[in-house]
């Protein structure tokens, strides 16, 4: 086992869970980040936009606060930007086609005991592992 950090993983995971319960209890919304972002970029109705903008602002503020606390984050520069762009396109397209990502299907869907979400999580974990193997080991791209 390499770089195993169980304590920070559990604490950080619990914080993600608390934030998801908070958003549901207070705002009545599922904390699925791909859906929140997509609904902000391509809104169906104007009143639906502000809470999304503020949630996203919270995510960004957390990044700034973390860097204020832990120091500047050293960016990974190993993965060529062409691969980064391809990855982003696939994540954006796939999460909209599948109706969720690690947060919507993973954290929230599993929390709601949704069979749809369980299937999605098994599939994206599986293809994620295959893609990482393919890029890192079969193609030898540093990521």
């Amino acid at each position, binding site marked *: 086992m390499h770089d195993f950090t169980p304590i920070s993983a559990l604490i950080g995971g619990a914080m993600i869970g608390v934030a998801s319960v908070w958003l549901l209890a207070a705002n009545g919304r599922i904390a699925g980040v791909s859906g929140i972002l997509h609904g902000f970029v391509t809104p169906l109705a104007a009143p639906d936009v502000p809470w999304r903008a503020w*949630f996203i602002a919270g995510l960004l503020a957390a990044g700034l606060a973390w860097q204020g606390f832990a120091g500047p984050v050293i960016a990974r520069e190993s993965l060529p930007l062409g691969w980064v762009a391809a990855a982003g396109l696939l994540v954006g397209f796939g999460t909209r086609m599948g109706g969720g990502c690690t947060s919507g299907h993973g954290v929230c869907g599993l929390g709601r005991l949704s069979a749809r979400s369980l299937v999605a999580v098994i599939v994206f974990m599986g293809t994620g592992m295959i893609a990482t193997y393919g890029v890192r080991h079969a193609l030898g791209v540093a990521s």
Partner: protein
Amino acid sequence: MSALWSALGAGFVFGLGLWVSGMANPKKVLGFLDVTGQWDASLMLVMGGAVVVTVVGFRLVSSLNTPVFESKFELPSRKDIDIPLVAGAGIFGIGWGIGGYCPGPALTAFSTLSAEAIVFVAAMIAGGVLHKLVTRA
């Protein structure tokens, strides 16, 4: 207005959780997905820790008639397992496994203004818009 401050706070705690847990670090994520390399199981515990909280917390929330700051709950109603669900999750996983970013970590990492976070988020938004265009046609 309270609802917006609430959304901001939820996003902030969510984002901090991503940094504390290591999810916001794509190398850490790929260390988890790289099961044939030097495997780092930490992210299993991130998901596990989060889901334990949501399973219990969502149960408690279900006793509320309405959310605190809104008039009703907006919950997914679908239960069917169809081709777009499986294909979409599969495509998402491939992108995740290439880049090490899923949407939440990518957005909070955007705050670092690193070239890769900017490129990833722009491409991710484009991918979502592309899906909307394709499915409308």
